[in-house]
């Protein structure tokens, strides 16, 4: 896929980068030029955009209110897809299409939110251990190894369940979507090791580069070197691992909700599967639609990450 266009376009890119207009964007513009040529990456971007579109415009597109159970009154629950209900209705008389559309913002909030938490922790710890090295580095690497070996998913399940009981009757209970927020934070807290690994590798690589040396020579402090010189150059690799992580978190949340540990107040795709799985035989459409939504979203982020790798870190692929 990416083989044929290796020799000539590179020089083209150089020329493009040297055009006066392009210089302003630098690395980003170069990356976009490369990204545009990658079909899988573009396909991923399209899928992700579709999900974002539904998440933002959901209330205007969805044919029914997510809590509209009027089909139940007309004895049309579990009815197959028809003109009235494009994807059918589920066992409680909800319109499947509307519920799936309203699940999109939940999925994106979970994915992006948990990765924000993970990125803050991961970049901080990975950056420190890469930049400082020595004992701190050794300690952090052992720690990430620990996280790589332990069965993270089942630990998360216990935490979600126990936290759900503990908050009953406390002040925290007033936070809207408390369960969902818990899941987001926990996914973030368990999701940082891959980000830390990449951040560490990038900081290790970049701190030896000439331009960092040069910055140090003209008297730049550590903080300025880290935030103004190293971090921006480490971002491309970090963005890739974060995009992968978003897909992963969405899948995790879907699995947690599918097992019945999700937020009962939020509409999420995993939750829809959980509610409708018992009626798979009678109303399969109510399970298939949210499943496909999860698949499309996760696939979108995975392909997007693939495309970003090609665009920003061409070294990684041959």
């Amino acid at each position, binding site marked *: 896929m990416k083989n044929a266009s290796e020799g000539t376009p590179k020089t083209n890119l150089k020329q493009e980068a040297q055009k006066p207009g392009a210089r302003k964007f630098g690395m980003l513009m170069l990356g976009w030029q490369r990204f545009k040529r990658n079909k899988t990456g573009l396909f991923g971007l399209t899928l992700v955009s579709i999900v974002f579109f539904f998440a933002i415009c959901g209330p205007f597109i969805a044919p029914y209110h997510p809590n509209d159970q009027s089909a139940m009154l007309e004895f049309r629950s579990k009815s197959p897809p028809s003109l009235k209900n494009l994807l059918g209705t589920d066992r409680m008389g909800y319109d499947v299409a509307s519920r799936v559309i309203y699940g999109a913002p939940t999925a994106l909030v979970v994915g992006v939110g948990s990765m924000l938490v993970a990125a803050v922790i991961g970049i901080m710890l990975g950056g420190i251990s890469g930049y400082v090295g020595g004992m701190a580095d050794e300690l952090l690497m052992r720690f990430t190894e620990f996280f790589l070996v332990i069965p993270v998913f089942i630990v998360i*399940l216990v935490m979600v369940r126990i936290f759900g009981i503990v908050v009953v009757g406390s002040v925290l209970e007033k936070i809207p979507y408390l369960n969902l927020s818990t899941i987001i934070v926990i996914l973030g807290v368990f999701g940082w090791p891959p980000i830390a690994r990449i951040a560490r590798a990038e900081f290790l690589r970049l701190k030896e580069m000439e331009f960092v040396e040069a910055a140090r020579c003209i008297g730049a402090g550590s903080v300025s070197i880290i935030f103004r010189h190293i971090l921006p150059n480490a971002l491309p690799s970090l963005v890739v691992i974060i995009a992968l992580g978003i897909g992963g978190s969405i899948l995790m949340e879907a699995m947690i909700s599918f097992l019945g540990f999700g937020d009962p107040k939020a509409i999420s795709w995993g939750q829809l599967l959980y509610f409708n799985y018992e009626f798979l035989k009678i109303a399969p459409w109510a399970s298939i639609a949210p499943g496909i939504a999860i698949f499309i979203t996760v696939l979108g982020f995975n392909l997007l990450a693939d495309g970003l790798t090609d665009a920003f870190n061409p070294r990684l692929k041959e």
Partner: protein
Amino acid sequence: MGILRFIIRRLFFMVFLVIGVSVIIFFMINAIGDPIELLMAERPGITAEVIESIKSYYHLDRSLTEQYLAWLGNVLRLDFGTSIVYNQPVSGMLLTFGWETVKIQVLAIIISLLLAIVIAVTAATRQYSKTDFSVMFSALLGRSMPGFFLGILLILVFSYWLGIFPSYGAHSTRSMLMNSALLDSLWHMVLPVAMLAYFNTATLTLLIRSNMVDVLRQDFIMAARASGLKHSRVVYRHALKNAFIPALTYLAILFGLMLGTAPVTETVFSWPGLGFLYITAIQQLDYPIIMGETLVITMMLVVANLLTDIAYVFIDPRIRLE
């Protein structure tokens, strides 16, 4: 460093890790709240005498550290305590349920490994062909397919619509398939194993293919071809051995993923394994089971990691033990 010293060092890390995880779970359950209070929150009708007897039985009147050490001491004697809900020894339950889980997962790993090798080699030897492209494409799709959703689709098609395979359980409750316990159990295993194997095959295929493409370009392959060896021998004996090594490390990760997400797999198929047991234990706060099972699963993961490390050394003598 000798292999023995390496193994001993890893074992040391293992013990540390397993204890670490059990400490996390133990203090999480306790620091967040008294297990008895949690139990009462779930079952309001419980009487004071029952609470007292439970307290003394599980040593809940002692300090947390003492409780943990008592638990650890019992575990060393293979005594995981008694399940609160089932009122059975946890160690026995872990054995019966664990066997069901290991059965499908090991089978799935073996099948996916064989499949992935054949598919990846076929694709890599025809790089950039249509076969290669479709293999890559479906593997990419497969990697993003949520396993449990695939399981749901399998049940829908093969047990509800076609009626070929059972949709739940590990054994028939009434009459067994052709009156044979083995056939009956295999019959139940088809769908769960297919689901697990599908996911692993996709990941392993991508990995082995890209390694294979690299290896096939190297000089020793050309030398082997030039010396007149058969194509299949060059590919399967010389190239595959080298392309396979990175996949080996990945096996431990895949096994970890499978075991960690067993609750989902086993909920989809109502499979009476560790994951299923875990879910009911969490729902009902059956705390000896949660503790025991986390320990056993972590231990299985760590042993799988150790085994791949050792296998690594035997397959690739270039690896130095550090």
